[in-house]
Each structure stands twice: as structure tokens, then as C-alpha cells.
């Protein structure tokens, strides 16, 4: 095991995890996963419930998995486990206020005592919890509690951060803030593992890992995930989204339908911006800027 090399990728080689159901039967939680995560890389991990994505995420974070067998090298991530954020904030909060939580996290990461207060205050401000820093959890919303969890994970400045459906219980604004923290760490060189069920969170050019039945079925870009391996020949049945059993989002479904009828040329659009640029967007006058009031004023004046 190599724990100190800062440039080596984190590597899983034919790694399997076996477990038991509560009833006692043997199950395979992850089967022969092979994956390399480079320093500073951002990957998405998707799959339905029970597909093994949490097991994979925990392995990447370096958390102990009983019944694991196969090749495993921590590389740049180091021997310490990486901060790992789960969906429900309440099982992950040990302090009684956001500030106490961050201080607790920093103390266990053996941060120098004189730096702790300042680092905690800075991170609290960055996630927008400055005013709420000393409020007990009962006075904070679920979104604010989850922000505190993410802040406590991010404040350690670890080389890897794993977010396991960390935003699935959050509304848009809190989700954007969590995303902002992850992007900030990523910009400073940290690798990010972003596990999600929401396909609209995927960046079409980023790397996506898709699982089904405990196996990694797909490792490619977000665009390939939706539209198949060759962007110039979109194939619904060849696309990983269909193959791992995830529901195709509305816009991808529409793109396939239009493509089939010859109304939309490949490569199919995968972002709002691409939709706007595609013939369809401009053809039917779609204002994708989101500023609908101006849009409707224009329509109204056009009518008059």
C-alpha cells in the first residue's frame, strides 16, 4: 500500500465487497470494480437504490468495508479516510451548533489549535452560516444542518471529498451552496466524488460512473451516458442511462424523439445552453435564460 505519493491515482483493481442481508443470505455489494481516480479529478457516480454506489463511494473515501477483496491503493488520497458526507445530516452532526461542529472536525484532523477558530469562522462564512454559527440544530432548517455537515467535511482541506447523495434532501439554493463548496475545493486541487440520483446534476463533459447490480457498467462522459458511446450516432438502447435502468430525463427523452423523426441532428443537446443553440430552441422561440417575465412582456407587446 502506498499512502504518501501525492501524484499517484487512487486505484481499485478487481475489488469485490461481499456482505450479508439481515436475513443471513450472502450478497455481493460490489463486484470486481476496477477504477482509477486521479488527483484533482471530479467524478459522478450514479445508479438506482441498491446498485452499489454507496459501497463504491465508501471504498473511495477509504472507509473500512468488511468482506472486501481485491487490489486497493490509496495513492494521492493518503492513508487517512477522506471526509464523507451522507444524505441525512442528523446522524453526522456531533456538536450542538455549526461552529462547535467545525471545531470538533478540525480538532480530530489535528489542526494547529491557534488556527482552528479562524478556519472555522472562515468556512462558516463561505457556506453562508455566519449568522447561524452559534444556533442549536433545532433552530436550523434541514438544509442549514446539511450545509454544516458539508462545511465540517470541507474545512479539513483533504485531498479528496466524497459526497454521497449529499444534496438529495436540499432545495435549490442550499444545493447550489454545497456545489459551490465542492467546486472551491476542486479548484484548490481536491478530487471530488459526487454520488447522485439526479441526472440533471451531471455535467455532460465530466466523468460519470454508472452502476447496476453491484457492477460498474459504465465509465465515460455525461453525454455518452445519456446518448450512447458515439455522440454522432445517438442510441437509446446503447446508452448507459437506459442500461443501468435509470429514468431518462425529460429533455433527453425529447431529444431522442426529435432525432428519430429527423428534426434534431446529432450530437444531441445535453445542457440548457446547447438546447438554446440547437434548431429546436431558436425555432420555437425558447428563451432559456430563465427570465420569463421579460419573455412574456415581449410576447405581450408582440401581440399588441
Amino acid at each position, binding site marked *: 500500500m502506498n499512502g504518501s505519493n501525492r501524484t499517484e491515482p487512487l486505484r481499485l483493481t478487481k475489488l469485490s465487497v461481499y456482505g450479508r442481508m439481515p436475513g443471513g443470505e450472502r450478497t455481493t455489494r460490489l463486484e470486481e470494480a476496477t477504477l482509477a481516480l486521479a488527483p484533482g479529478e471530479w467524478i459522478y457516480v450514479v445508479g438506482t437504490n441498491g446498485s452499489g454506489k454507496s459501497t463504491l463511494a465508501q471504498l473511495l473515501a477509504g472507509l473500512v468495508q468488511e468482506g472486501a477483496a481485491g487490489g486497493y491503493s490509496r495513492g494521492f488520497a493518503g492513508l487517512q479516510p477522506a471526509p464523507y458526507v451522507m444524505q441525512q445530516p442528523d446522524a453526522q452532526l456531533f456538536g450542538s451548533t455549526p461552529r462547535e461542529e467545525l471545531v470538533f472536525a478540525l480538532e480530530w484532523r489535528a489542526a494547529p489549535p491557534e488556527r*482552528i477558530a479562524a478556519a472555522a469562522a472562515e468556512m462558516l462564512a463561505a457556506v453562508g452560516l455566519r449568522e447561524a454559527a452559534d444556533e442549536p440544530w433545532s433552530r436550523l432548517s434541514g*438544509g442549514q444542518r446539511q450545509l454544516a455537515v458539508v462545511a465540517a467535511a470541507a474545512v479539513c482541506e483533504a485531498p479528496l471529498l466524497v459526497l454521497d447523495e449529499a444534496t438529495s434532501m436540499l*432545495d435549490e439554493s442550499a444545493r447550489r451552496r454545497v456545489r459551490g463548496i465542492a467546486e472551491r475545493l476542486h479548484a484548490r486541487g481536491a478530487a471530488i466524488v459526487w454520488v447522485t440520483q439526479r441526472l440533471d446534476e451531471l455535467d455532460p463533459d465530466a466523468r460519470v460512473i454508472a452502476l447496476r447490480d453491484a457492477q460498474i457498467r459504465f465509465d465515460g462522459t455525461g453525454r455518452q451516458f445519456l446518448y450512447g458511446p458515439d455522440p454522432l450516432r445517438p442510441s437509446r438502447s446503447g446508452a448507459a442511462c437506459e442500461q443501468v435502468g435509470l429514468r431518462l430525463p425529460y429533455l433527453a427523452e425529447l431529444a431522442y424523439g426529435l432525432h428519430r423523426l429527423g428534426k434534431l441532428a446529432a450530437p444531441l443537446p445535453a445542457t440548457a445552453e446547447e438546447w438554446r443553440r440547437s434548431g429546436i430552441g431558436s425555432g420555437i422561440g425558447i428563451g432559456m435564460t430563465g427570465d420569463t417575465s421579460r419573455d412574456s412582456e415581449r410576447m405581450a407587446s408582440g401581440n399588441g
Partner: protein
Amino acid sequence: MGEETLRKPTDAVFAEAELRIGGFGDRLLRQADAPAEKDRALVLRPRTITVLLGPNGAGKTRLLEIAAGLRDPEGLAVSYGGEALWRKGRRRLKLRPDVLKRYSYACQSAEEQLFARSVEAELRYVLAPFGGGEAEVAARVEEALRAVGWDPTWLARDPYAMSGGERRRTALACAFAAPAPWLLLDEPTSGLDARAHEMLAARLLAERERGRGVLLVSHDADWALPLADMLLLMAPGGRIRPCTPEELLARPEWWREAGMDIPAWFEIARAGWRMGLSADEVLDPRRLAARLGGEGSGEIPSPLAPVSPEPAVVSPTARHARADAPPDRSALQAVSPAKPHPLLRFDPRSVWLCYILLSLALFSIQTWISLAAGAVVTFAAVRLGRFPLRRWRGVLLGFASFAVSATLLAGWTGSGGDGLWHADAARATLLSFGRTWLVLLLGLGLPLAIPPLRLRRSLLQLSTFRGRTSRRVQQVVLTVTLILRFVPQLLDEWGRFTRIAIARGKENAKTPGAIARRLKETSVPFLLALFRMGDQVSLALESRGVGRVPQPTMSERLRWRGGDWLLLLAVGGIAAALAIGGRLGWY
């Protein structure tokens, strides 16, 4: 094919009932066509699917739980088919079991509530309150399986040996099985695969045809909107705007008004709608593609043709909406600072020392008068220390009633005294239970009032010798503080499972039999939830590196101040007065 034969036994039960939730005041915005005089009540009609949308924290789950009678109605009046869900009891509101049978409820992650060891047992448990002969029950069981795409071979399967998705299906089958006119579903699709999404959508449409009403919370807006006859857009703070999907297409700014972003797909759907396509057509991407591609009947208006269904003036509403509901504030409403807890002003060590002194004094109580004095002191402490005792209501009441029965038992069977009633034994028992109860009152409240990590800090400081703490002490202290940390949460979980047990068992009687049944249905899911939580806590701790480093750094030291001496002196004096005064007969 089998539809016809199966309809016979169950169809009659869906006596169509209106779901009415009144008492919103101005939190319920009026629908465009509603008469102005009508009081602010939400009326959901049978044979409709209503989708409740809103950002997290807006209170969607809470509203669903209120509709199911699982929490205090907070001034809302819920009725099914004109029958109120709550009736006035002697002291507080009581649920009416007959009205509980008007709905079937599946909470978020409904699979967590399963407790039986076979699918059949689970289904029969849910069906039991509805009665009916064996043939009828068997038909309902079979139909419920069919609703989730299963055949009868699944009946013998054990939910604990299933995958998460299969367990969810079992839970949804239970929701469909009950012949109740309303289905209340909270995030039924989260984490399910594409086929399950499709199956559930088809099933909900079929249930609507059969006369049921559906109230559904879903984050998958592009999945749920095509199903919806009516939408409820719920903003943070609880304001609700009822509208149809068509109205939302006309007024997309209502997404923002409710604190949500307008989804990109909705903009595209809306563009199609402005071209004159119907809401049904544009909300289903396959139909929209077909229409834009020239399939289907009728002409598509050219993109440049004047737009017909667009309301002429939308902008004033839009501006208004933006002014009073800034989109970015939802989860992060300004918090006015709480008044700091009075006990936080002291070092936790002095508070705990005071607690120990008082407890010792209470335990030494021997006479009724000193018990009364002890009670006064205890209640004063609870009051001044603002102990959140409401959480422990069940435990405290349970202990009190146990004390009374133990006293009666001692009185009948004890020795000493004369005749049938052994007064001395009864008195002694009651006295000893009484002082224990007072100690319990203090002891249960204190951990909730002192933050566990502060306590940990102080305990570690106490046990530190020449700047080092032994590893064993560290571990013990951490374990104790974590247990204290999670006690309130465990109590909440227990409460949640008890409430859902009432919703599924349709029974809230206080008879021993009913309580025992509910206990079973509560304790199994609770224990499983406990294990899950334990797993999560240990993962979180491990990922934080807790326990890995022998000696974490300490960023601050607690100091023992003058106030701590004062507190200790005051409480010590009171404790001494209690203990000694009783003996010396001061009072």
C-alpha cells in the same frame, strides 16, 4: 383481463370522498376561478391526482402528515367525505379510527416501516382494520401484488431478504392494498429505477379511474407533472398556491414564487405550449417530440404564428412575485439569535457537580415533608435550567404510573400494618418511587440541556494529567457524549414510527391489546433504524478521523469562573438543607 373479476369485491369500497383541509387563512392563495367568499380550504376531489411541489423545508411532508392525522393539526381542519379526522376529547383532540380508514399512507422511504417476515403477513396486517371475508381479503392481496407488478409467488418472500427496491415495492403494495378512498404518498419514486417509475405512474392513473384520490409529494417534477390534475405549490413558510399544470405553464414565475427554480425542461415544454399544444402533449416528452416532428393529428402552428393561450399580461404578477419572494432565501432565512441557554453560562463541570449533589440529597429523603421540599427544588431547577422535559413525557408518565401500581401491589401484599391494607409498606414504596422520580426528572433533562461536546471537553480536562489523557478515558468519554448526543434523535425516531404505526394499523386505542400490537409494529422498524443510524454515525466518525489520532488538539479550554463557585455554593446549600433539614426536623 382480470380487471373485471377483481373489481367486484373492492370497487364498492371506494365510496368517493372529498379530502378537505381547512383553516389555512391567507396561507392558501385563491385559485383563479374560486368564488371570493369561500373560506380558505383546500378541497381535493376524488378521482383526481394532486401533486404537492415545493423546495425542501417548505413543509410538504408535514402537510401530508397532518392530512394523515400523524401530527398536531396546527389549526388545520382535516376531513374526509365531510367527516372530521379529529374530534374533541375531554382534554385534547382525538383521532377518529373510522376516519383513519379513509386514507392509505406511505411515508418517505416507506420500506423502513415494514416489520412482518413475509409479504403476505405485511399485506394482511394492513388489510386487517378493513375487515371483509377471507375471499375478499385474498382478492385484495392479489390485486395489491399486481399493482406493483408481482405474482403470488412473492407472498412468501421475506422483506428482510429483499433488495431496497423490492422492499419499497412491498411497502407500496401495502399502500395500494387498503381499500381506502385516498392515497397519500410521500416521495414514492425516490431511488427507484425507470421501470418502477413507469409502473407507478400507470398504477396511479388506474387508481384514479377506480375512484380514488391521490395526494402525492414528489421531487421528480418531470415524472409527476404529467400525472397531475392539480398542483399545490408550497413556498417556505407554508404558503400554498393551488393551480393546474396548464396554469403553471401560463405562469412559470409561480415556480419562483414558491422558492424553486424553473426547470430547463419546463421552459421547453412551455415553448411547445405557447405554440398552441395542449398541456398534456407538452408535459410528455414523447408526445411533444411526436407533435413537433409532425406526427399525430392536426397542424402545428408555425413558430412565428401569434400565440393564443398566453395570458395577455403576466408581467405585473411576475414582478410582484419576485419582490415578495426573493428566490435565494428559502433555506437560509435569517435566524434571529436564540436566547443563550442559562446553563451555558457555567462550566459543565459545575453543573454536573450540582446535579450530583442534588441527586444525593433527593435520594436521602425520608419524610413526606422533605419529599415535598425536594419536589419544589426539582421543579424550580427544571424551570430555571429550562430542561426540555416534553421529550421524556412518555418515560416520566410511564414511571409515574408504574410507581402507583407498585405502591398498590405493596399495599396489598406487604407486611406490617393490620388488615387487608398494609399502609406502611405502601407509603414506603411510594416515597422511594417518588424521590427516584424526582432524580429521574433532573437526570433526564440535564443531558438535553448541556451540549455533549462541551461536556466531553470538560470531562477530558478533568482527566488530563500533565497534558495527556489516557486513550481509554478518551474512548469512554467520547462514547458517553455520543450516546447523550443521539438520545433526542432516537426519541424522535421512536415517535415517528409510533405515528406511522397508527396510520397503518388504523387504531389509536389505549387498550393493552392495541398498545401491544403497536409496540410490535413500532419496535421492529425502530431497531432497524437504530442499526442504520449506528452505521451512519460510525461512518461519519471514521471519515472525520475520530479515534484514529491518539490525541486530538484542543482549541479552547473551559475555565472555572466565579459564577461556577456561586452556582455550586447555592445548590450545595440547598442540597444540604434538603438532606440535613429532613433529619433534624426543621420543617
